């Protein structure tokens, strides 16, 4: 399959009072049509900024794309005009966000908010756009869609609002959907509903999804492939299966091991959780070496001297670490 979206050497800088923060540092990613790509990392790792860069919504100032390209079917979105980007946003690439409670405009009816999206991208009458809104609400599993379309956001629960967001995002049949922590703010049973919905819709429409999350569980639920980010770098990427069962980068291993995962048959034996020592470094104070080196239990002198490049360990799996073999051996 061909990549519909390909990011090459993307660099995003933010000017802050403490100095220049390189929020994204030579990110390269490929998204194939119809797949679900997960991007995982802790807060501040740059995963949301990757999404905003694709959408052309990097807050500027203080942010700026200083290098690299984002090509959508060969068209570089970094160079695209504002008018073209407006067509792309919502029409070809759409996005849903973490906070369904605040992501919908409180003073407009949800049906109008969906219909607006349709009207922006298609030559269609207002009545037809409204009909599409109701149809989309049905599709995302909202009961009594005709009535709910006339509701205001505050009259809906968090799960409902996230469904509305999904309905809006998919209303113009986009080719790519970016979901930025779509379930983090939701209760676990509602979260499961949203996962199932996204899975079903993806299968039905073939929309490629970029799923941004901090939760390896969410990755396991949805993603075909994963990229792990740390301090503005992609430090590992590969098939979900490989990353979960055979993580190579010390950070990825730590990220998986430090979370107490729910087991179906727990035993009396409860070891302490393994920890990643220290804290995420400030982006304004990154040294020239590997960003993870100060916290890495396996670091060698070269780790602090020169940043490792991401390299393939097999056909689908790449890692940015000098000590891959050593880590695997341990």
């Amino acid at each position, binding site marked *: 399959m061909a990549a519909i979206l390909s990011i090459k050497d993307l660099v995003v800088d933010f000017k802050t009072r403490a100095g220049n923060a390189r929020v994204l540092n030579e990110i390269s990613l490929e998204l194939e049509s119809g797949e679900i790509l997960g991007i995982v990392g*802790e*807060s501040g790792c740059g995963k949301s900024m990757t999404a905003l860069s694709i959408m052309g919504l990097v807050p500027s100032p203080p942010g700026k794309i200083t290098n690299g390209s984002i090509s959508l079917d060969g068209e570089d979105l970094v160079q695209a005009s504002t008018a073209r980007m407006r067509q792309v946003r919502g029409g070809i690439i759409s996005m849903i966000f973490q906070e369904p409670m605040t992501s919908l405009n409180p003073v407009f009816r949800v049906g109008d908010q969906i219909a607006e999206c349709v009207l922006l991208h298609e030559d269609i009458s207002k009545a037809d756009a409204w009909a599409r809104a109701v149809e989309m609400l049905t599709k995302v599993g909202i009961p009594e869609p005709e009535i709910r379309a006339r509701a205001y956001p505050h009259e809906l*629960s*968090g*799960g*409902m609002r996230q469904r509305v967001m999904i309905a809006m995002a998919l209303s113009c049949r986009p080719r790519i959907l970016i979901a930025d922590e779509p379930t983090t703010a939701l*209760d*676990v*049973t*509602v*979260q*499961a*509903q949203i*996962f*199932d919905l996204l899975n079903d819709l993806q299968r039905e429409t073939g929309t490629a999804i970029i799923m941004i999350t*901090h*939760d*390896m*569980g*969410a*990755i*396991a*639920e949805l993603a075909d492939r994963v990229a792990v980010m740390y301090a503005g770098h992609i430090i590992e990427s590969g098939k*979900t*299966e490989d990353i*979960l*069962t055979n993580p190579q980068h010390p950070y990825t291993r*730590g*990220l*998986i091991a*430090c*979370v*107490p*995962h*729910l*087991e*179906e*048959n*727990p*035993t*009396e034996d*409860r070891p*302490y*959780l*393994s*920890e*990643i020592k220290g*804290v*995420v470094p400030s982006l304004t104070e990154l040294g020239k070496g590997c960003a993870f080196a100060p916290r890495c239990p396996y670091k060698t002198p070269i780790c602090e001297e020169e940043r490792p490049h991401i390299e393939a360990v097999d056909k689908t799996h790449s890692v940015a670490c000098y000590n891959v073999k050593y880590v695997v051996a341990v």
Partner: protein
Amino acid sequence: MSENTLLEVQDLKVHFGGKKLFRKAQIVHAVDGVSFSVPKGQTLGIVGESGSGKTTTALAVLRLVPITAGTIRIGDVEISSLEKEDLREARRKVQMVFQDPYSSLDPRRRVGDIVREPLDLMNIGEEEDRDQMVHDLFVQVGLRPELASLFPHQFSGGQRQRIGLARALATKPELIVCDEPVSALDVAVQAQILNLMRKLQEDLGLTYLFISHDLGVVQHLCDHVAVMYLGQIVEQADRISLFSNPQHPYTKALLAAVPKARPRDGTEKRVPLTGDPPSPINLPTGCRFAGRCPVAIEKCHSIAPALKDRGNGHLASCHLLD
């Protein structure tokens, strides 16, 4: 009440709202008849989704919200009937760690003063020893004591939670109520705090009442688990029994809904719960879960099931188990 029970809560009810001028009363049944006990030195986890009343239960144990009915006993003190000065004194035995590391510390106070304040207010130790006590508390929670003169905004989320722990430990409490203490933290930091809490429990023989929505964390940390739904406990058991042999349909659905961090193998098709929990203002008659329950029968909609022992102290409230 058995010898080694530290906290015993019986038929606790917390209802909010009520009379207002020119307005109809709307009563929120946040906690509606909850009973549990926690043995000394152990951890009881309360899990539930938003609106389940788990946080209100936690606050009620410290009498930080007004109690509508029920008794709360800590050791041999019935804290639910105390008022004013007696209540203030009794709070020494039970402390709380809060959810939000950013709003749980007074931003205008130095962290050393924050940790010292309970010593001063509760009159613990001699005045001249208190600086040393603060120093020791900092060491105990893994912070450099020389940071005591800084202000909360100068610390990261994990460090703030450590300060919150130090403040809670200052009065040498027997019980610590933890309200989602790690849910606002990044996963790597979360592990550090969970490990610290376990270590403190081992060293000091603390008893925890641990409120969380994260079943993985609860399974890792707690000895006993109570599952709450709309103000009531629907299932309660020891850790192994609850997770390996859940009884209540809600618990089953909850466990099935948790994403597992391992590759999908296609075999697990969960029965998803539809809809959201109903509001605690207009409660359904009968079983509160009936509206979303995949296996509900007619009876469930009219008669509320009782929380009964289903063997070996594993409690669950469901007609289908009777």
